[in-house]
Each structure stands twice: as C-alpha cells, then as structure tokens.
C-alpha cells in the first residue's frame, strides 16, 4: 500500500483505481449483511465463486463475486444482484446458483421463480431499480451499501471516497466546515435532533480554550427493532471514518472513539479493518495527506447497557466506569471524556458529513422540509411485508413509507398502529398515517423521530401488551441512579402487568398518567424522561383497549394470557392427538379420532396447540 503523503497522491490513486472499480463492471453482488447471513448468504456466494469457475465464466466475462453490505431488503434475503444489468433475485438458495450462472449470466435469460413479485400488485419485477421497495427511496447514506465491498478501501476511494476529507484539508478552514454543516440544517440523527453544526461550534470553541478534546461516534444502537447504524458500519465503514475525520479537523480534535455495541460482531470487524486500511493509506494518523493534521480513531465496545446510548453514560462507560448518566450541564461540549470538551454524534450524522461537504450545504438543505433537512433511515419491522432498511427524504408520509415501500401488512390484516422511536417513542394510530415525518409533526402527536425504528402493529397486536413490553424494556434498562426512573418505571410496569393479567382496577389509568407525568418531569436523563411515552401515546389513541382490559376483563386483540381461554371446536377436531401429545401442561384430553378438549384451568396458554393444529380446530376467546 502506498502512503498518501499529499492530496495529489490520493488523486493519482483514484485515477489508477478507476479502471479496476468501474461501477458497470460485471459482477454478482451478494448481500453480506447480518440479516442475509442468517439466511445463509455465505454459502450462496461461495457457491457462486465455485460455479463461475466450473462453468468457466471468467474467461468469457471476467465476472466477480462481490460480497457487499446490507442491501436493506432484509425480508427477501439472501439477495443477489447481477450487474451491470441489475437483475434482482430474492431468496436465492445454493441450489439456484448453477442455473443462475448458466441461464442468466451466460444465457441472458431470467429465471421466473426467482424474480421478485410485488406483494401489492402481484407484478413480476426483474430489475433492482424497478422494485417499489427501492424505487421509492432516496438513498443518500445507503447509496453504496449494496454496491461496495466494505473490506476494500480502494473501491471506496475509486468511487470518490475520502474526496471530502481532501477538500476540507486543502480548501477549507475549520470555521468554513462548521459553517457548511450549520447551513446544511443537519440535525443529530441519534434521536434528540439537535443542530449538528451548532454542537460542533460549541465544542470547537471549548477545544480552543482548553487545547484538547475528543469526538465520539455513538454506535450503541440500542433501540430494539433499529439496525441502520449497524448496516452503515457493516456496509460502508469508510464513510463514517471520513465523516469523523472531517469533524475532527473542524473542531481541532486529534482523537476519536467509536462506541459500538458488542452484539454487532460483523460491524466491529468491518470497522476495525477499515480503520487499519485508512491508517495504512495515511488517511488516519499523524500527518493526514501531508496536511500536518493528526487524527486517529479507537474502538470501544459497549457491554450491553441501553442507557449507554445517553451521552453522559456513554462517556462514563468509555472511561471504564458504570454507565450511569450525570446531570447536565455541564454538557459534554464543555466537559466530556476525561473532563475535556467532547462532541458525540450518531453514526448516521457522521456518515452524512462527507455527503454534505461533497455536494454542498445548499444542495443538502434542498432535501426534506423546512425544519427537517436531508434524509432519514428507517428500519421498518414487525407486521409488514417488506421488512428492511429504507432511506427517505424527511417529510414523507407514514402511509407512503408503509404501503409504497413497506408493501403493506401481511395476510390481509389491517394496520393498527405505527410505533416510532423505540422505547422512547410513541404509537401512532392508523388515522395519522398521512402526517409528514418530520421532527415537529411527530413531537406534536406524541411520538419522536428517535433513531428511526418503525414497528408496525396490526389488529392482532394488543396495545396494552405493547406498552407493557416497552415499559418492561425501559424498566430493565433503567440504570437505577435516579428515583423517578428506578421506582417509577417499576410502578408503571407492575400496573400494566396487572391490567394484562386481568386484575386491572378502576383508577389504574389515572394512576398511570400521574406516574408518567412525574417520571417525565423529574428523571435525570432522557431514558427516564421518555420512558412513559409508549404508555402515554397508547393511552391517548387506544384508551378503549385499556378500558376493555380493566372494566370488561377482555383483551380485544386476544393476546393477554390472563384474559383469554383456548378451546377446541369439536366439529373441526379430527382427533389426531398431535396437540394432546405436545401440550406441556397436559391440559388436553381425548381419544383418537374423537374431538379433544382443553381444560382451561390447566392450560398455560402457550400457543403450541394452535401452531400444531392442521385443522384450525383451536380458537382463542
């Protein structure tokens, strides 16, 4: 590897690499994101490598197999795209590989059973760019994710990577960089939505005063159901590194940290690898591109504490202590890591920086709405056809996101609610689907943008149980430092558990509301201050479900175990004994070929019998 001691050397390298990394060079890209790996994509790309050799494709087409980062369409993995044509095959198995090579790659023909069929229209769609899931997105941060080999810094450079860092070091002053970020309107993508430029400016001022400071990339992505930060780090780690290097230059900082979840082994591996490559090229280190600027990045692994996503808790954790938040002020920009000014941004915020520098603040500010600029990445999960990661301009409606991109709700069910912003967020009912997604509109409705988790609930989801789930989560993750959060969330949880068990009492709703207000107004950090949000929004929009649980002892969605009974419809039961044999509570009795019966007193409502019954003979009342 050459050491890039001047910007000219980087330019030369890019020119040299351009030929070997042409965007239109023939290759098979296989998604290597965590999701597709679970589906077995590793075996698929190995099979492609073998098959391309066996069928001697290389001699004819000089075709590569490229393992990329997450393509986003996790529902349909393992995903395969044949470039340059962009033929898109979903759910590819090893057995399909020889046929793909002979028919599609060599023969130019499509294989019908592997072609994606749109769940809404039933239409068959052969090319990636025409699939509604991709077509309706605006992929700015994720644009190279399905295209780039994340372990090849050369490919990133060939596509213009580190060009923004070069521009900053050669043509811009630190103040000009900060002015540019401010003008872009970028707001922190971690949840709070504070102006990134203003945050940088504060930190820069304090670094000048004290002579030392740090920057941190917050990759402690803890919201259940959100995994976009992981996918960025897995699929395009160099963009995060480049963004951090630009920020470091702007703020006058020489050391950065990435605080990343231990539960993301692949992201950690790719990031480590990328940092080493960047160092080898002199894009990190003592004298970056001969500019005299010094900056390096160290990785700190989180140890599984949700509260460490909060910036003061994160700082405590990097310092090797228990991750408990402390009161602010002083804000980290004044006194952060080891008492020095520290700027903490989310992965998506850092990854947006090189794009803003490259295309200009005015261009970036042209995307989105008046108060929410740029794009946002959502992970659409739960009861949705197209589970996956999507990047859209701010201001898009939930309906467009859920139906045009997400493909609607499976099994012909109706949507009941969209939950945004994880355990700190809120549930919006179906009647608010046409609201534009921006910071202000969501706050007004009681939800938050958060870090982009979007969980869809359908008519089978019990909203009281859903709220209980989130409260259970925050209660477990509460660090216990301040009383309102430690005891308040426990009191809220036990009330919700009581309601779900069928022991709700009149007055419970008022009690929940009172607790919620107290916790919100008096907790030390954002974890506690936002913990009641799922309960508050479900109470606001689905109060009738709470009332049914409390007053009528009925769970309308038939979920809460204390309020449902299982029974067998004698006319449908064939007496096959399968449920009887598998019942863990021995609650089912009967004889062969005669209708069985469930004893409700012994039944643990585990649901095994429903899963097993081939005759739909078991009902929930």
């Amino acid at each position, binding site marked *: 590897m050459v050491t890039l001691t001047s910007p000219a050397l980087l330019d030369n390298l890019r020119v040299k690499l351009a030929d070997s990394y042409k965007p239109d060079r023939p290759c098979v890209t296989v998604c290597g994101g965590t999701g597709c790996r679970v589906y077995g994509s590793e075996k698929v790309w190995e099979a492609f490598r073998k098959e391309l050799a066996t069928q001697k494709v290389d001699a004819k087409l000089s075709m590569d197999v490229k393992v990329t980062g997450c393509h986003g369409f996790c529902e349909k993995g393992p995903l395969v795209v044949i470039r340059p044509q962009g033929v898109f095959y979903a759910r590819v198995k090893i057995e399909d590989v020889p046929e793909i090579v002979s028919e599609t790659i060599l023969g130019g023909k499509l294989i019908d059973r592997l072609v994606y069929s749109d769940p809404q229209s039933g239409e068959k769609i052969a090319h990636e760019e025409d699939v509604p899931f991709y077509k309706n997105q605006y992929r700015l941060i994720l644009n190279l994710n399905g295209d780039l080999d994340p372990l090849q810094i050369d490919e990133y450079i060939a596509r213009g990577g580190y060009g923004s860092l070069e521009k900053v070091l050669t043509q811009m002053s630190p103040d000009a960089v900060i002015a540019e970020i401010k003008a872009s309107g970028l707001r922190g993508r971690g949840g709070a939505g504070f102006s990134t430029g203003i945050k940088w400016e504060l930190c820069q001022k304090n670094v000048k005063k004290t002579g030392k400071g740090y920057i941190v990339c917050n990759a402690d992505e803890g919201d259940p159901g959100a995994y976009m930060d992981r996918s960025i780090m897995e699929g395009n780690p160099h963009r995060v590194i480049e963004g951090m290097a630009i920020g470091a230059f702007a703020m006058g900082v020489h050391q950065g940290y990435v605080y990343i979840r231990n539960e993301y082994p692949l992201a950690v591996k790719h990031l480590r690898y990328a940092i080493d490559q960047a160092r080898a090229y002199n894009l990190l280190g003592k004298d970056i591109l001969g500019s005299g600027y010094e900056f390096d990045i160290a990785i700190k692994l989180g140890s599984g504490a949700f509260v460490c996503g909060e910036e003061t808790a994160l700082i405590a954790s990097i310092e090797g202590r*228990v991750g408990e938040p402390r009161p602010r002020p002083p804000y980290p920009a004044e006194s952060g890591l080891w008492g020095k000014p520290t700027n903490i941004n989310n992965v998506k915020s850092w990854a947006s920086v090189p794009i803003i520098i490259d295309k200009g603040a005015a261009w970036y500010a042209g995307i989105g709405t008046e108060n929410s600029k740029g794009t946002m990445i959502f992970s659409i999960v739960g009861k949705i056809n197209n589970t996956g990661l999507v990047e859209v301009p701010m201001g898009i409606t939930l309906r467009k996101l859920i139906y045009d991109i997400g493909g609607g709700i499976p099994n012909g069910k109706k949507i009941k609610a969209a939950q945004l912003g*994880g355990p700190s967020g809120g549930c919006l009912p179906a009647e608010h689907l046409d609201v534009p997604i921006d910071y202000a509109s969501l706050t007004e409705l009681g939800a938050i943008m958060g870090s982009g988790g979007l969980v869809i609930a359908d008519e089978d989801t019990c909203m009281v149980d859903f709220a209980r789930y989130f409260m259970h989560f925050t209660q477990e993750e509460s660090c216990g430092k301040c009383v309102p959060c430690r005891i308040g969330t426990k009191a809220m949880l036990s009330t919700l558990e009581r309601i779900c068990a069928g022991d709700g009492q009149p007055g419970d709703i008022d009690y929940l509301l009172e607790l919620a207000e107290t916790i919100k107004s008096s907790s030390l950090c954002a974890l506690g201050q936002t913990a009641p949000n799922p309960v508050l929004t479900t109470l606001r929009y689905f109060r009738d479900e709470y009332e049914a649980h409390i007053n009528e002892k009925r769970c309308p969605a038939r979920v809460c175990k204390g309020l449902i009974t299982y029974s067998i419809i004698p006319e449908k039961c064939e007496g096959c004994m399968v449920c009887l044999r598998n019942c863990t509570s021995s609650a089912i009795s009967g004889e062969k070929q005669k209708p069985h019966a469930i004893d409700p007193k012994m039944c643990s409502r585990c649901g095994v019998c429903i899963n097993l019954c081939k005759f739909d003979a078991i009902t929930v009342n």
Partner: protein
Amino acid sequence: MPVSINEIYEIINKEAQGDGSLIAALEEIQERYSYLPAEALILASERLGVPLSQAYSVATFYNAFSLKPKGKHCLHVCMGTACHVRGSPQVLDRLESKLGIKAGETTRDHLFTLETVNCLGACALGPIVVTDGEYSGQMTTVKADRLLKTILQAGSEE
C-alpha cells in the same frame, strides 16, 4: 474450563492501556471463560488500580458480564420489538418450560444457559433464537422443540 490465574493476568496486562481499561479487560476475560471468575475481579482491581468495589459494580452493571459460569450451550432469545410482535414471548415460554429454568439461568447439569437479548437487528427473520452463535430465524414453539432436540442429539453423538 479451569481458571488459570496466569492466563487472566496475561489478558489484563494486554488490555492495561491507560484509563478506561477495566471494561476491555473484563470483556476479554468474559469472552475467554464465558463468565468472570472472582479471581479475575481481584486481579483486575489490583493491576489496574481500580477499587474492587468498582470492578464489582462494573461486572454487575453491564449485561455482557456474568459472575456465574455458563452452560455448555447458550440459547439467546431475541426480545426485540419485531420479534416480540411476531411471537418471541411464546418461544421463550416454551424454552423455559422445556428446560425447567427461567431466562438468565443455567440448567443444573450445566448443559444449557437460557438468556434474552434486546434486538440482534435481524428483524426480518423474527423471532430469532441464537444457539452458540448460530442464528435460527422465524422460530415457533414447535421449531424451538426441534432446536433443543437437535442440540441434544448432536451432544449424544459426540
């Protein structure tokens, strides 16, 4: 796995790089032994100049650390939101009743440890159960039974 004081000391020495080394050292030891032996906490506190009380508080605060040895096989049930709405509580219930332990516990024969995890980010495949690092997606109570059976069979063939 027997605890080797020398090995623990080596790990701590390797990780001892200025402020904030405690967590990294404990992570390495946890990785090596799948728990933190008492000796490790004492050694870490002495070598890194951190009060033992602080080492203990760190070890009990973070979910990644355990003070008890884990079973031969670790089952992690994902309790993320997507898995939850797709039925992971039923899967967990089933595994709990089949193994006769609660989440967070280890069977008396030290064969299984059952744990929950908050989102692995493979939401399209929920509910997810991870067995010794191997992911199984779209779990149901029936598939959970089969999973246990496979592990037990593989064990008896060894």
